[in-house]
């Protein structure tokens, strides 16, 4: 006799969507969260693309606690003194059916978990899962927790316990854990009056801005980001772990240098740090993903390394919500069919393969490595900003140099061989599909 049908570990976006899906399918669901409330352990780079919620929570955009709808999407290349900003604006993104939103994860995740409760799931917070229960055949039958008499059994356990997933590791789903597959994200939440943010970023009402930055991370491979909330700005850097330790630069020093950059400093002038935060990101995509299922177990979200870090696309919450939803649906189907072995749960992997969750990852497989490669990180920002600087610098009485000459000279100055440039361009073209 089991306590419940489905145990979901972790009430983040993956876990809450798994719980909603399984509860909507009529299963008994227990959703376990180790924080005092859902979202209390969670931070991120900053944009949620919630379109996938249409299926689980119709009309979600009328209730979800978002900060601003992103209407300006910028990609910024920083050299030491220069900046090239490619900025797209569409006010249509600020209206239904919307595109991306900024939100505080403690607000958003808590709201999403309450949707799971409304669908019939039981939410238990302040409870840390300490291990898995197995039957004599090794099949996973439940969880151990740090509560007195805290063992709980179920037909299926869905591990949505985040990037460090001790459950997926204990179940043997990860082949190995290599630091080079991870980045560290550190972020400052910076307080500014709403009207100042509106003026500096050229937005109004609940329109928001998303700026992704390449360069500006003090020689550590990674990137930066700036997002607008209503009366705060989220500013941070994402740093490749082995490089971070090798370069002997501390994360907060790298943030400080980014904040001093002439293109960034005016945006945040006068802002006060009201919250500092850090989180690790699974960055290597398909190349680091674990097996998605074992007997009695599914894994979703960051726990399954389902985070897309493909340069111009940086997404995670949508991958978490989708994979969680498919895991919840698959668990419910398997329970109804009476087979919750890995084979009985295979509809989950099938669904991941058929949808954007793994299709995007397969298409962009090579991009995370390209974006974090030394050339893209350390040479291209200078190369590209150098070209633009030369093109727009007027040196009368000298005539304008030809673009080909600028390209050749700047390429040499940046130390990029023609063959490497062509190779990276091809990888990029092929990789971005």
């Amino acid at each position, binding site marked *: 006799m089991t306590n419940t049908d489905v145990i979901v570990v972790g009430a983040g976006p993956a876990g809450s969507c798994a719980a909603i899906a399984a509860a909507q399918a009529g299963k008994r669901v227990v959703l376990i969260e*180790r*924080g*005092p409330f859902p*979202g*209390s*352990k*969670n*931070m*991120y780079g900053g944009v949620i693309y919630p379109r996938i919620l249409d299926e689980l929570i119709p009309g979600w955009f009328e209730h979800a606690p978002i900060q601003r709808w992103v209407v300006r999407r910028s990609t910024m290349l920083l050299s030491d003194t220069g900046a090239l900003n490619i900025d797209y604006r569409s006010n249509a993104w600020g209206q239904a059916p919307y595109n991306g939103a900024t939100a*505080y*994860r*403690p607000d958003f995740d808590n709201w999403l978990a309450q949707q799971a409760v409304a669908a019939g799931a039981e939410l238990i*917070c*302040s*409870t*840390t899962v*300490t291990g898995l229960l197995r039957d004599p055949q090794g099949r996973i039958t439940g969880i151990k*927790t*740090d*509560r007195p008499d805290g063992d709980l059994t179920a037909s299926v356990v869905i591990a949505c316990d985040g*990037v*460090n997933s*001790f459950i997926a590791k204990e179940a043997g789903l990860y082949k190995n*854990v290599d*630091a080079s597959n*991870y980045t*560290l994200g*550190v*972020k400052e*939440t910076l307080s500014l009056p709403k009207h100042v943010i509106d003026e500096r970023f050229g937005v109004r009402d609940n329109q928001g801005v998303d700026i992704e930055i390449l360069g500006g991370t003090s020689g550590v491979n990674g990137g930066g980001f700036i997002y607008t*909330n209503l009366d*705060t700005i*989220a500013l941070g850097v994402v740093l490749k*772990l*082995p490089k*971070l*330790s090798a*370069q*002997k*630069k*501390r*994360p*907060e020093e790298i943030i*400080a240098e980014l*904040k*001093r950059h002439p293109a960034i*400093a005016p945006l*945040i*002038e*006068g*802002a*006060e*740090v*009201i*919250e*500092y*935060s*850090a*989180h*690790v990101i699974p960055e290597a995509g398909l190349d680091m993903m674990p097996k998605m299922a074992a007997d009695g177990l599914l894994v979703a979200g960051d726990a399954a390394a389902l985070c897309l870090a493909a340069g111009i696309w940086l997404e995670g919450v949508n991958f978490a919500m989708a994979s969680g939803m498919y895991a919840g649906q698959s668990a419910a189907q398997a329970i109804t069919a009476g087979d919750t072995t890995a084979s009985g749960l295979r509809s989950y992997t099938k669904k991941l393969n058929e949808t954007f969750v793994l299709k995007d990852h397969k298409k962009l497989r090579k991009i995370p490595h390209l974006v974090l490669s030394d050339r893209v990180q350390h040479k291209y920002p200078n190369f590209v900003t150098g070209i633009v600087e030369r093109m727009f610098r007027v040196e009368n009485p000298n005539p304008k140099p030809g673009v080909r000459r600028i390209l050749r000279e700047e390429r040499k100055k940046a130390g990029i061989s023609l063959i490497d440039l062509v190779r990276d361009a091809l990888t990029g073209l092929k990789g971005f599909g």
Partner: protein
Amino acid sequence: MSLESLRAANNIERDATWAEMSFQDRIDTAEFRIHERAHITVNGDSCRGCTTRECVVACPANLFVPTSDGGILFNYENCFECGTCYLVCNKEGAITWTYPEGGYGIVFHRT
């Protein structure tokens, strides 16, 4: 207004960037609900033989501090629970890392 005072005002405005903050002030912006049990343990003997000290550089909460006798002084209380330390550590078994007791540890609010 004189030209001098205009220039001075202009300079003040240009120099009025954000102030550097101390690391303690930075950490104090985050809420930590501290449990008496340390959720991370560090094996001092392993650290003594370590020359690379990845954790000292990478830990965003700056919890690992080298001591003059070649060891590592460690504090778990202001941990973000990110996992960076055990991921970057090169010494097998030097850092034992679990999540803190349910309800304890870092509590984010506007992240």
